[in-house]
């Protein structure tokens, strides 16, 4: 039991440390919106077969709690949410684990060497100008080399950190919602032809006391979630200036803090939980971009520290509970560059190195650190009808442990190849095929955590094959765009926890093998009748058959793996009339299993959620934009769960006020 608790504690901690596109038609975004997205130092591709994006306006429309909630709307992604504001959210893309997705904000990787999982509930959307998920290929060339070596990349660009032409810009968002949610964000940016400076801050809180219901045998049990409160805040500043016409320098500082209750899963007959998590982090990043003739170069360096304090006062040990503290630091520096070779080719490359260390305050046998160097080199070239891109990456990981046995060093080379048609044929048909070989390194928790860690772990390998087609059969007043992707991926040496000392002490082993076959279909329709009236419809459907190939003799051989539903889908309809509009959106998931054995007792029921929103904008005067929106989420009050017994909220309301000075 004790060790079970430890495992749980670890899992909970891991959860709390800190997953595709539909809307390729964006004429509704105003000119100024598009300008903001077009960041001078990033070359953006628009291949819908490899990336899915959301702009600020779309984010405003859906009013998501966080990035996790917006990524749920993308095809090929599987959200795992533990419920509540700030509660752990991770996204698995195309059947690979959450650790196979890198998160990059304003060109800087968000690091988490301890658990390897970024809690997407801690990344909020107020400041986002654009967010894009790249499954294969790249949307730009100047991210850190290490960003391109994962299974997929989530790229976020913020308002706070972009050069702009208008003198003074302001963003203010204020939200009030069910379950005690109060959420305020303010950012001010001063622009000058030579520089910009921005300061921002955000505070949100919620008591998280949401009503829920679930089925216990034949009885519907209702309750109110407890120990689910959250207070979190962040603030920071950015500045950037032009050193010359083609050279920029940027500094980004941000701090984050959170104090939250961990409600855990609903336990039958025992409603009491007291675990808490207090987290704090700071990051300081420097960035230098320059264009020297045909060469674009970026030099960057960043520091990030994270402090986490996990408290469980009800743990039945002699010291009256658990109080565990973790400190981790990461320093990350590197160079990325690309150069045009003639008019048909681009050569790109980069190298970066990341030093991470972790201190487990309660551990006597682990104080690990890691040097992780990554380089990539590649190029793409346009033949008459085809474009080909090739990339090779190398990673060299040196492991150290000041207090005990260390993991083995790793050095690996991984290829990536993409082919797409160059000419837009009839209907703008575009074919894209790609192959990617990648891996994820075991996290510090998996390697070193007391009793659970296993220093003998090898990296988890992933191979992905994808083929996509998109076309635009109608492009008039009515626009229609269809994108389909089919893919196959397999993961080897998957890191799974199994009992190795007794039932309660689970330890990490490279025992899993998962084969995933998937199909994504996205459809975007836009109908613009006149200046005043327009309609948008987006829909996507994902089929994922993710089978356990770990062991021929296991009862779960070729069973659908836990937590991957076979069918998921999204739909949304937006009606815009003058400065007002209505949004209907829905998310559906078929049933899934809580464990790999596909038996009825492991079933987590499928569900459908419907959200509704209505907004009104005050006509833009002198760059002032004022918007009010009212949303109802889970309109039909469905009871549902992404994770077994982590009950999700029923119907909720949100009123949001947004002011922007463009």
């Amino acid at each position, binding site marked *: 039991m004790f060790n079970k608790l430890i495992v749980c504690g670890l899992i909970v901690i891991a959860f709390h440390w800190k997953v595709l596109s539909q809307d390729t038609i964006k004429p509704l975004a105003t000119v100024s919106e598009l300008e903001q997205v077009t960041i001078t130092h990033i070359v953006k591709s628009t291949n819908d077969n490899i990336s899915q994006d959301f702009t600020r306006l779309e984010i405003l429309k859906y009013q998501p709690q966080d990035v996790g909630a917006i990524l749920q709307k993308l095809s090929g992604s599987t959200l795992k949410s533990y419920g509540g504001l700030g509660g752990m959210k991770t996204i698995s893309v195309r059947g690979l684990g959450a650790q196979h997705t890198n998160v990059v904000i304003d060109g800087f990787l968000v690091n988490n060497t301890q658990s390897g999982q970024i809690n997407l509930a801690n990344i909020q959307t107020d400041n986002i100008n654009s967010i894009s998920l790249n499954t294969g290929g790249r949307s730009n060339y100047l991210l850190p080399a290490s960003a391109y070596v994962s299974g997929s990349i989530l790229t976020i660009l913020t308002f706070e950190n972009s050069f702009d032409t208008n003198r003074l810009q302001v963003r203010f968002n204020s939200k009030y919602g069910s379950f005690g949610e109060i959420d305020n964000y303010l950012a001010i940016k001063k622009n000058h032809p030579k520089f910009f400076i921005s300061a921002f801050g955000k505070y949100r809180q919620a008591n998280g006391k949401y009503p829920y219901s679930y089925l216990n045998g034949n009885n519907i049990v209702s309750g109110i979630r407890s120990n689910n409160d959250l207070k979190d805040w962040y603030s920071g500043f950015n500045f950037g200036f032009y050193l010359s016409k083609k050279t920029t320098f940027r500094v980004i500082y941000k701090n984050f803090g959170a104090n939250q209750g961990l409600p855990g899963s609903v*336990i039958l007959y025992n409603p009491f939980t007291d675990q808490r998590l207090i987290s704090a982090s700071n990051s300081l990043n420097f960035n230098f971009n320059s264009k020297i003739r045909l060469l674009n170069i970026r030099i960057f360096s960043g520091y990030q520290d994270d402090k986490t304090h996990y408290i469980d006062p009800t743990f039945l040990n002699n010291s009256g509970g658990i109080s565990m503290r973790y400190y981790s630091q990461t320093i990350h520096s590197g160079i990325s560059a690309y150069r045009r070779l003639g008019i048909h080719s681009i050569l790109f490359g980069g190298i970066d190195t990341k030093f991470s260390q972790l201190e487990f305050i309660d551990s006597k046998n682990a104080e690990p650190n890691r040097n992780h160097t990554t380089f990539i080199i590649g190029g793409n070239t346009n033949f008459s009808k085809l474009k080909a891109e090739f990339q090779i990456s190398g990673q060299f990981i040196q492991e150290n442990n000041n207090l005990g046995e260390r993991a083995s060093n790793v050095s690996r080379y991984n290829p990536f190849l993409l082919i797409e048609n160059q000419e837009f044929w009839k209907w703008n048909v575009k074919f894209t095929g790609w192959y990617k070989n990648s891996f994820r390194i075991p996290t510090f928790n998996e390697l070193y955590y007391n009793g659970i860690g296993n220093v003998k772990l090898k990296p988890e390998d992933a191979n992905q094959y994808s083929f996509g087609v998109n076309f635009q059969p109608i492009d008039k007043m009515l626009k229609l765009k269809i994108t389909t992707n089919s893919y196959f991926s397999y993961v080897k040496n998957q890191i799974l926890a199994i009992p190795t000392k007794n039932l309660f002490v689970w330890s990490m082993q490279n025992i899993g093998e998962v084969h995933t076959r998937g199909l994504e279909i996205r459809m975007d329709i836009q109908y613009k009748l006149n200046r005043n009236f327009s309609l948008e419809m987006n829909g996507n459907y994902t089929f994922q058959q993710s089978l356990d190939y770990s062991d021929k003799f296991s009862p779960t051989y070729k069973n659908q793996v836990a937590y991957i539903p076979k069918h998921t889908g999204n739909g949304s309809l937006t009606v815009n009339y003058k400065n007002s509009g209505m949004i209907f959106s829905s998310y559906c998931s078929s049933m899934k299993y809580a464990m790999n054995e596909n038996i009825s007792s492991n079933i987590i029921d499928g569900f459908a959620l419907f959200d509704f929103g209505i907004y009104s904008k005050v006509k833009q005067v002198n760059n002032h934009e004022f918007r009010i929106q009212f949303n109802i989420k889970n309109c039909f009050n469905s009871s549902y769960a992404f994770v077994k017994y982590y009950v999700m909220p029923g119907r909720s309301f949100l009123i949001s006020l947004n002011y922007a000075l463009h």
Partner: protein
Amino acid sequence: MRYIKLFIIVFLAVSCKKHKVETPDSTAISGLKNGMLVLCEGLFQQNNATLSWIDLSNNTIDNDFFTTKNSRNLGDTGNDIAQYGSKIYIVVNVSSTLEVLDKNTGKSIKQISMLNGNTSKQPRYITFNGSNAFVTCYDGYVDVLDTASLTITQRIKVGDNPEQMAISNNKLYVANSGGLNSPNVDSTVSVIGLSNLQELYKITVGKNPGSVKVDNQGDIYVITRGNYSTIPSRMVRINTQTDQVAQNFSFDASGIEKMGNKFLINFYNYSNSTSNIALFNTENEAIEINNFISTSNITTLYGVVYRSSNNKIYCLDAMSFTNTGYVRVFSGSGIYETSYHVGLNPNNILFYE
């Protein structure tokens, strides 16, 4: 008057019919004889502890027996099951409940909450003496339950995180694991006098005591589970006259099951997933047969139960802990006979004649 008579007749008929459903005769129809009730522990925080009912007359299995009978689930982590008198007691660890069922119907008589204020007592095991049931609780107590009124009458302070118990010589021997203080685990057995219901003293036995059994001679045997690395899991014998450790055994052991005047000593090796069941003679205190049962068809040995009435050995196979398990049946001489597919992590069996 005629109506009243009719009413009485109808009432009686209805009552009789209703009554009939609940008589022991009809439980025979519902199946509670010639079978076995298997407690399947489930997994932590998944609320999937279950009872499997195996009807041996037709070999049918109901893996959702508790829910079928009580229209609600058993809860989280079913740790122990025992029968005493006409009742069945199930200790549900994480849900922190004691479920009391009617032995003949499987229906709930009472659910006793094992919460202490806002904190779970985390009950672990149950044993009986006279009118009392003793329940070890991970908060360092043995709770005394009056089996007639089904109320907790007393809490007896013992060592840290107590596990199994056994009774000998009018004393209750409680293994104090101290598992939640790992690596600084407990190494004692608390001795409780059954006449005054107080801890008399503690006996030091070795690190992390867990299983406790008594033999026909009244000796107490304790498994000290060590630290899962350098200190191995071993068995010690306590002389209940002197309450001293009389013997330390040098073979690997993780559980004890009594078979007449012998013990079946089971051992599951987590590092290579192999298991062993040895036959131990409690008269000459020595292993008689080292590999008494061929465990090659057992994936994860999670417990052994001996049934004296048919002289059969039932091995509980937890199937790597994340898959539903099996009860594997062997003859009294260790020959494999059959298997029954049950719920997740089966850990104990009650037999019905």
